[in-house]
Structures are given as structure tokens and as C-alpha cells.
């Protein structure tokens, strides 16, 4: 009996092992083996090899980053190795070590933790590998390039949009995780935009909170409670991303307030675009991902070839008080009026998906 069990277990383990090894051979393990055998020169065709260390794939947008990055690598005929750290800074440190052992020519990091990633930059630079800080800023002055969207502008644009639509009234501010540098930057920008209106008492911020890990259900509870506290007398819920906006909408829906209260967001997630089409969410911020990933790949290739980055401009990192070279791409505000001309036109979202819950006669004409 026991022996049978053992065999069963053995079978299970080997089965799992087989499953796991299959797909990994394309990027991870096999190339580690190569690099270990032949040292850094292990580039068979002399192809440039780009290492891309990502913090997470849990949010939809990062999935798109990965796809766009890999697609552009293929197009430019360079090799790329992608690792994902599951939101763990320590795993990301290991990932970077592993990428460096694989003999990459340039390292692209989307950091989980802005400050901890600085030590990863040091390691790479010690091996003469140039580093690009992707989307999120690494707190290090040694990085060769920071490529992102105009993050400070995102917070500002959201707040300006809200203020323009709701110049008077009670505001609930739902900020992102307080451990995320972008969330803090967004908060400061929003506070700056709203300051005059708050001082003149045109608007009143009745609740403001950083939400741990950007969790939608925490945002839901927070908005639910803020509505209770203020007897539903709220005119705008300024939310820092689409996931949390979904939570805020659920809270408003329960009180029959959807469509009557302004709700903002960021990322242009599929569910948020649907909410905008239905009129439940007012706006979101669309950061065209494909240009970002493509520009990152192209900059990486230039760095690998030791060419100058002509389109980079100095960017002030306030935490360090130093300027670093940066490429910052434009962002786009999306609301009900321009769904067709932005996300759908770019192929970022499908017409059928965005208007899935809107009756056919109320949809705009398909282009």
C-alpha cells in the first residue's frame, strides 16, 4: 500500500517536473546552461541579448508590456530574456543575478521597489551592463536611461479633469499603495492641482486614503464607508487606477449613484473601458504601451552598441536631487467621447469588448 503511494507520488512529481520544464526551455533554464558553459561570449549568432526583469504580471497592463516588448525584440531581431518577480523585491534581485549570469548585453528593469533596485543597478554596472529603468523610476543616479510615461502629468491630468467637470463639491481621494513611488507622486500632483479650490472652499476633500497594494476590495470598503460618513453627499471620487475605480463603482452602484458621481482611473483596463462606455466611470488615463515597449527595446539596442541616446532629456529625480537621462512619452485622457479615436483606433482594445454591455442601438458607429 505504502509503496503504491510512493509510486503515485513519484509519478506526480515527475509529471509536474515535465510540465514545468517544457516551456521554460525556451528562455530560462536552457540559456542559463549555455551561458554557464561558455561564459559571457555565449551569443551564438552574435545577437544582442536584452534582459527584462519585471516586477509583476498580475495587472493586465504588464501583460501587455511583456507582449509588446517581446514582439518588438523579434521585429528588431534581438534576443530577449524576460523574468517576473511576482511583486517580490528579493525575487527580483535573484532574477537580475540570473540574467547577468546569462550574459545579457543590456538590462531593463521594471522595479518592484524603487530603492532596493538601486543595488541591482550597481551589480549590473559592475559587469559593464547598461541599465534602463522601465516605467517605474529606480532611485539610482547610475542608470543609463529612465523610460516611462509622463507620470507627474498623470496625477495632474486626472485632478484637472475632475476639477473641470466638478468645480464644486465633496471629493473622495483614493490613492495607490503608499509603497509605490508613482502613487506618492500622483498624490502630490493631485494635491497641488486641487489646492486653490480646497483653499477657497469650492471643493472639500472628505476622505483621502492610500490603499494597500492598490486592492479593489479595499477601495470598495473605503468608498462605502466614506459615503456613509458623508450621507452620500459626494460629487467626485478621484481614484488613482482602474482596478480601484472598479471597487469605487461597486460602492456607488449600491447607493444608486453610478453615473451621477465622477469617477476617475488610470491604465485603460478592459473592464474600465467597458464602465466608461456604460457611463459608470467618467475617465481613465491611457498610456500607450506599445510605443513605450518599442522605445525601450530600441534604446536598449543603442546602449548595447554604445551609441548615444539622442532623444533622451535630463529628468530631475527629487529623491536623489540629481538629473538622469530620460525619455518620457505622452499620455492620453480617455472618456466616453474619445473611446473610438484613442484605445479602439490604436488596437489597444477591441470595439466588441469595449461596448459589450451597451445595447447595439446606443453604440457609436463602428469605424
Amino acid at each position, binding site marked *: 500500500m505504502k509503496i503504491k503511494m510512493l509510486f503515485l507520488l513519484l509519478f506526480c512529481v515527475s509529471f509536474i517536473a515535465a510540465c514545468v520544464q517544457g516551456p521554460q526551455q525556451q528562455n530560462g533554464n536552457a540559456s542559463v546552461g549555455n551561458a554557464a558553459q561558455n561564459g559571457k561570449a555565449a551569443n551564438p549568432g552574435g545577437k544582442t541579448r536584452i534582459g527584462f526583469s519585471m516586477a509583476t504580471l498580475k495587472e493586465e497592463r*504588464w501583460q501587455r508590456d511583456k507582449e509588446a516588448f517581446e514582439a518588438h525584440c523579434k521585429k528588431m531581431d534581438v534576443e530577449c530574456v524576460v523574468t517576473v518577480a511576482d511583486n517580490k523585491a528579493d525575487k527580483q534581485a535573484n532574477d537580475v543575478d540570473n540574467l547577468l549570469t546569462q550574459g545579457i548585453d543590456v538590462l531593463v528593469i521594471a522595479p518592484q521597489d524603487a530603492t532596493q533596485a538601486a543595488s541591482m543597478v550597481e551589480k549590473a554596472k559592475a559587469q559593464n551592463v547598461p541599465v534602463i529603468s522601465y516605467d517605474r523610476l529606480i532611485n539610482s543616479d547610475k542608470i543609463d536611461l529612465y523610460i516611462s510615461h509622463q507620470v507627474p502629468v498623470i496625477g495632474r491630468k486626472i485632478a484637472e479633469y475632475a476639477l473641470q467637470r466638478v468645480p464644486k463639491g465633496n471629493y473622495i481621494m483614493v490613492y495607490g499603495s503608499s509603497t509605490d513611488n508613482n502613487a506618492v507622486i500622483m498624490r502630490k500632483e493631485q494635491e497641488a492641482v486641487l489646492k486653490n479650490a480646497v483653499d477657497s472652499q469650492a471643493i472639500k476633500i472628505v476622505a483621502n486614503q492610500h490603499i494597500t497594494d492598490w486592492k479593489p476590495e479595499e477601495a470598495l470598503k473605503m468608498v462605502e*464607508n466614506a459615503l*456613509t460618513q458623508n450621507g452620500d453627499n459626494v460629487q467626485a471620487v478621484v481614484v488613482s487606477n482602474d*482596478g480601484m475605480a472598479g471597487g469605487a463603482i461597486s460602492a456607488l*452602484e449600491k447607493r444608486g449613484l453610478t453615473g451621477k458621481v465622477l469617477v476617475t482611473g488610470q491604465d485603460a483596463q*478592459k*473592464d474600465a473601458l467597458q464602465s466608461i462606455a456604460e457611463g459608470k466611470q467618467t475617465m481613465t488615463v491611457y498610456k500607450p504601451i506599445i510605443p513605450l515597449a518599442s522605445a525601450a527595446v530600441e534604446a536598449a539596442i543603442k546602449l548595447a552598441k554604445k551609441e548615444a541616446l539622442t532623444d533622451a532629456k535630463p529628468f530631475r529625480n527629487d529623491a536623489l536631487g540629481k538629473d538622469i537621462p530620460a525619455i518620457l512619452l505622452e499620455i492620453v485622457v480617455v472618456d466616453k467621447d474619445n473611446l473610438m479615436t484613442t484605445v479602439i483606433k490604436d488596437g489597444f482594445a477591441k470595439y466588441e469588448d469595449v461596448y459589450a*454591455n451597451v445595447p447595439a442601438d446606443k453604440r457609436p458607429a463602428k469605424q
Partner: protein
Amino acid sequence: MTEQIKDSKFKLPTSALRAYTMIAALALIWLYFHWATGSIFLTSRNLSNLMLQTSVTGIIAVGMLMVIVAGQIDLSVGSVLGFAGAVAAIALTRWEFGLPAALLSAVIIGSLIGLAQGAFTAYLNIPAFIVTLGGLLAWRGAVKAITKSETIPIADPVFKSIGGSYVAPNIGWILAGMAILAVLAIAFRRAQTQKTYELGDANYAGQMLKAIPAIAGIIIFIYVMNSYAGIPIPVLIFLAVALLGVFITNFTTFGRYLYAIGGNPDAARLSGINNKLNILKVFALLGALTGVASLIFTARVGSASPDAGTLKELDAIAACVIGGASLMGGRGTIFGACLGALIMASLDNGMSLLNVKDFMQDIIKGSILVAAVGLDMLGKKS
């Protein structure tokens, strides 16, 4: 009650003492928040929200309590919650199973996962901590895989109503009536048993008197819920699950075996209890309840996201522990676990109403968890 105290020379049974201390603690927390929020906390609207905010953790805590009583632990419930919710959402939107099948699939998936993890624990002797730690990682991976890391929105209004709609007030009163009848029937039977086992005359009046707090509780609860919008559906499900839990732990052999197994596994085995089978069952039960909770969770947020339910296992374990359960097994009550969940939710809700900063909320909750168990240990020593 005063008589009872006199009879036993000012000594209440420890379990009752624990329950009274916790109710008192909850009352204190509520009164403080009511005062601090400017009389908002104890309005019917906020209490309705509070019960809603308790229900997901509460349902999982009921299952978790039984697992903990049996001397086991399950760290995977947060990931299983995410996975089951995602399966339901995908079954509904992508595979177009139809609503009943989609709902059922979440519960079935939950039970199957529980069954598998229970089998690994009971029959392959891998510690539950390890099996479910593996589960925590593996099922989160599975969520990311099947959702393709995208948030899956739910448009179906019936599904969504599980998370946010209310039972009509008159139906609420009918339910209250049924509950009160049930309480009276139990009291009546208790009195009769006394006679059956020749422990003296049937003390009908005494038993009825004891039933008064329960009846009053039911009436107040329904009254408060109805004066807002009625009983929220998730809360109704939570109450049903809690009652089922009380029934299982107190009135079934399976439930009593769990206490025996957790208290002393060897003694339980030698007295003829099939430890392995019962452990298997309790994990499956928790899995099924997690499936139920996942439906409410998903319906409430209105979508299934890849990180849904992270850290829920800790909420559920904390609720059990605050409620007086011992992680060594053999000790704990469903009532305590539910109260523990309510205390945690009350802290969340109250601090959120007061707009306390997120880091302070975490610090306060952590401190209260340790303090609650500390108090419990003090009480045990004396």
C-alpha cells in the same frame, strides 16, 4: 443568571467567560467608534455595511475554525478564493455555462482543492502547513494563468446581486419568526432532555428564560437591518453558514471528532476514530465554504481580479484566534470565530470612517491581534 453564578461560587464556565469578554470588547469598540465618528458608526446603514464587510472573512473563518480545531491549518484559502472566483467569472463570461453552473463550479472547485490538499495532509502525512503553503503559491499561479492576468468584469446582474442586494423587509421578519420558533423549540427540547435522562423535572421556564437573549438578538438584528434596506444577501449566506457550523461542531459526531482529534490525535485514533478520513472531510468543507465566499467576494467587487483574496487566509486565521481558538487544536467555537471576524471588520470599518492613515490601521490591527490572544492566555492561567 445570577443564580447560576451563586451556584458555582462566582465561576462561569471558561468558554462562557471568554464569550462574555469578547462581547464586552466588541461593545466597547462599537461605543468608542460611535462616539469618535460623531454618531455614525451605530446607524443602521453603517451596521448594514459592517455586516457586509464581515461576511466574506466570516464565512471562511467558520471553515477555518473547524480545520484549526482539528489541529490543522490552511494557508491557501486566499489563493483558492481568487481561483474559485476567477473560475466562476470565466465560466460565466468566456465559457457561457449559464449562471447556476458557474456558481456551482466555484463551490465544486473549492471542494476539490480542499479534498486534494486534505488527502495530501491526511494520507501522505505531509504537514498541512506545507501542503497549503504550496497551495498558496500554486493556486495564485493558477489564478494568474486562467485570468491571463486580466481583470474579468462581471455584467450579469443576478450574479452581482449576490454581493450587494437585500432581502425584502417582510421576508426578513418571516425569517426572524422562523428563527425564533427554532430557538424556542431547542429550549423546549433541552428542558425535556433533562427529564428523559432523569436529571430532575423538566425546567421549561428556566430554559425559556435562557432563550430570551437569543430571541432579543434576532429581533434587534432584523429591526436594524430592515430599518436600512433589509438583510444583505451576503450576510444571510454568512448567517446560514455560521448556523451550519454551529450545528456541525456541536451536534454531529463528525464535529465532536474534530475536537477529539485536535485535542489528542493518538487518543482519538485509539478510541476508534478515523482521523485521516475526518481530516480529509474538514479540508473539503473549508474548500467548499471558500468557494461560497469567493462568489460573494467576486460579486461584491463586480469583477474577478488576479490578486483577489491575497492575505485573506491571515484574516480568517486572525478571526479564529481572536475568537479564542487554539492553533494547537482542540479548542475554539464557531461563535467565537464569527465574533472575531466581526471585531476585525469593526476595526477596519471604524478606522476607515475616521480616515485613519493606512499604516496606522495596520499597526493597530496587528497590536489588537496580539493583545487579544495575550488576554486570552492570561485568563487561561488564572
